[in-house]
């Protein structure tokens, strides 16, 4: 081990260098050398991050400077491009038998893969073990299946697959909600695309909370709604959540 590396393992030295780096006291080659070491030495990076968060409180003291309106427009355009949201008028939910959706090859493939998953696992609500996934088929008022959702522990995400495009006005968007099994306020999980698959990442706490979820719902929300925490819009689709257990 080089003396240089040993030097950076001395807490007295690397803590001082970390705080100098954060404040901006390291320049030129010294700064680059420290950044290179940070990439391979976790403790350096962790110390820097801890000091960064300490000093970032200084931002509270700054006077406000209002950004131009263009800045938000640019951000909004960026996000909309990312999510590829398309919308038009109302949900295209004709009163056709639900099995008609199987005519669509993509929907058929998705449902087939879901059946494969379910046959690989056993839907057993009386199992003593913990669920490894949850699934729900969301249907419209006419009972036509419109979306398949799956919550997976292995991927730590919710996938929502819209089997038919939901046509909604330009100023509206679709939102996914979890309704507690024993009543209470629904939890907003995120905005979803009107067509195709949307992936919403979840954390460990959210995963654990799914054991208490009874119903998933997709509602139409105004893009300008004041509070994102309350279910304000009309529910378009809903379905009971089923637990999947490992055999």
């Amino acid at each position, binding site marked *: 081990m080089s003396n240089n590396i040993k030097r950076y393992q001395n807490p007295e030295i690397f803590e001082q260098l970390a705080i100098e780096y954060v*404040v901006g006291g390291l320049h030129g080659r010294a700064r680059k050398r420290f950044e290179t070491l940070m990439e391979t030495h976790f403790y350096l990076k962790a110390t820097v991050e801890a000091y960064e968060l300490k000093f970032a409180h200084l*931002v509270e003291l700054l006077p406000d400077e209002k950004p131009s309106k263009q800045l938000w427009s640019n951000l909004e355009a960026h996000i909309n491009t990312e999510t590829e949201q398309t919308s038009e008028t109302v949900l295209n939910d004709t009163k056709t038998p639900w099995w008609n959706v199987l005519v669509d090859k993509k929907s058929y493939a998705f449902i087939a893969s879901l059946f494969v998953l379910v046959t690989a696992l056993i839907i057993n609500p009386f199992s003593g073990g913990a669920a490894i996934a949850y699934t729900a088929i969301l249907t419209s008022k006419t009972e036509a299946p419109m979306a398949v959702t799956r919550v997976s522990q292995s991927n730590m995400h919710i996938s929502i697959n819209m089997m038919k495009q939901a046509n909604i006005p330009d100023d509206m968007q679709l*939102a996914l909600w979890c309704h507690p099994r024993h009543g209470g306020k629904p939890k907003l999980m995120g*905005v979803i695309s009107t067509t195709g698959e949307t992936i919403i990442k979840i*954390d460990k706490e959210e995963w654990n909370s799914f054991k208490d979820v009874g119903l998933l719902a997709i509602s139409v929300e105004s*893009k300008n709604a004041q509070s994102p925490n309350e279910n304000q819009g009309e529910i378009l689709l809903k379905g009971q959540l089923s637990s999947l257990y490992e055999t």
Partner: protein
Amino acid sequence: MEDKYADLLQQCAANNQLAFKQLYDATSPKLLSLCLRLLQDKQLAEDVLQEGFIKIWDKANTYSPGKGRAMTWMATVVRNKALDKLRSLKTKPAETEIQYEGLEFASRDLEPESLEHLSQDIQGLMECLKTLKPAQRECILLSYYYGHTHQELSDKLGKPLGTVKAWIRRGLEDLRPCLTI
């Protein structure tokens, strides 16, 4: 104290655009103020702030309250973007008609009556900074808010380079035990 932005940031991780707009409206004025001081150019500052908010949106799922307050996490993301931009420029942007300089905003808040509306975290940090000599504190704050190099601080304050370096080094040495990371 409740972290009003942490919930919004976690909703951004779930692709909630409404939450992102609320978060942007609430935090962008302070974050732009930071970018303006580091970059001294309105257009550059807005470009960097835009990049910063895109990163905040994209990386919101990596934030957890255990990492600290949401605003400090966001400020770190944006400041690092601004420092990257500053370092990518061969020279600092030419000074414009509007000057972003001085530490009046920070000095004022060292007074006890001004600390009341601030979070406990910043109050703690300011208490630590108050233990330093004024020259040490000034150099550290100018370095943080404006990204000044030692040489720039030396020129600005009219003090020898070695003196400025010593102020910063000793100031940070004195500050470390108080910060207790």
